């Protein structure tokens, strides 16, 4: 058992956990934040993507103890008062069907738009390579992300 102290969606969390607890299990089973999904458990599908210190990571491929001291944002932490613009765009453009892949898709898309506010289709497809969707055929996901892009915006420096 190891002590863990992290911030999840803005709130401080202290816990004592088994060292082998994966971050996704800690979020889902200990904190009952079931937004991050376990789709494959083989590090392929991206349904479990959350942001750790501002970087997208597969929470199934990281031990919770490794996140000690980190600031984590899950899909539950995106909406503030209303849906996050990326969530709203997925709804508007029908970027989901069953919704299983959606939390990971949205978290990856939010990260992409932060680094590259005006991605073209090729860049969006490249960014989503680790997020597998069995339903949509991806087209509407790409449409949704394009819809929240800021035309002509340059990536932030650094």
């Amino acid at each position, binding site marked *: 058992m*190891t002590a863990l102290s992290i911030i999840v969606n803005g709130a401080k969390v202290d816990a004592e956990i*088994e*060292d*082998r607890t*994966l971050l996704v*299990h800690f979020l889902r089973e200990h904190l009952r934040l079931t937004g991050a999904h*376990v789709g494959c*458990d*083989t*590090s*392929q599908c*991206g349904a479990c*993507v959350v942001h750790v210190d501002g*970087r*997208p*990571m*597969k929470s*199934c*491929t*990281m*031990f919770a*103890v*490794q996140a*000690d001291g980190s600031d984590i944002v899950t899909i539950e932490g995106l909406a503030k008062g209303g849906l996050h613009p990326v969530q709203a765009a997925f709804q508007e453009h029908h970027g989901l069907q069953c919704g299983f892949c959606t939390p990971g898709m949205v978290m*990856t898309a939010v*990260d*992409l738009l932060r*680094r590259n506010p005006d991605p073209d289709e090729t860049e969006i497809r490249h*960014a*989503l*390579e*680790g*997020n597998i969707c069995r339903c949509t055929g991806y087209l509407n996901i790409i449409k949704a992300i394009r819809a929240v892009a800021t035309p002509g915006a340059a990536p932030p420096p650094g």
Partner: protein
Amino acid sequence: MYTANFRYSRPKTLAEAEALFHAGVDAKYLAGGQTLIPTMKARLAAPSDLIDLSRLPGLSFMREESNALIIGAGTCHADVAASPVVKKAIPALADLAGGIGDTAVRHRGTLGGSVANNDPAADYPAALIALGATVKTTRRVILAEDFFTGMFATALEPSEIVTEVSFPTPSRAAYVKFRNPASRYAMVGVFVAKRTDGVRVAITGAGHSVFRVPEMEAALAKNFTPAAIAGIAISSDGLNGDLFGSAEYRAHLVTVMAKRAVAAALV
């Protein structure tokens, strides 16, 4: 899915990490975990102790020094791909890092973990061999040529830690890979580098470990064009054959991808 139990520790210095390693029964270092954790989840590995190197200070950096680019072992693939320093010194290396796995894997997987693991289909080993890189560890400096010793095998001693890799800057270079569309690992990846002392062609994905193609290197030293190597076929003996492609297919891909790499290096 749960791994077997282990004891986790997060040392603050390299010396402490090595001491913890020696104190464990069957200890393993953990960097980005993008190879080790899936392996542990599949119960193909069950180390007694995991020594987390991912927060060790001073292992994540990129800097240019007299005709070389030095990258810390703890630098993640996404940082290499996005780095202005890397893009200026060796753009082919930034391209390579940007094509590893996927976005999330690139934000966690590290250079040190990739070279220490020496997966036969990993991308970085091709860059190290083609560029004539040197690997610095907690104990010594090892030429890339001597570092990669076989399938998933390196010259590292059990507790030795890779700290940085130094890549001499080439005059031209490019990396192209034919990706397995599902895993995105290289079916065949070719790194071509033109240097003051000649040309190097390093192949990953095709064999048990990264290898060079001397016939192509000699032809390209005389004439650095795709046409110069179009007629050079490599033998399929000893190459990897699996459900994704036969050894003959991979041998064919080597020439195809090498031509593309030379063309890309000329742009």
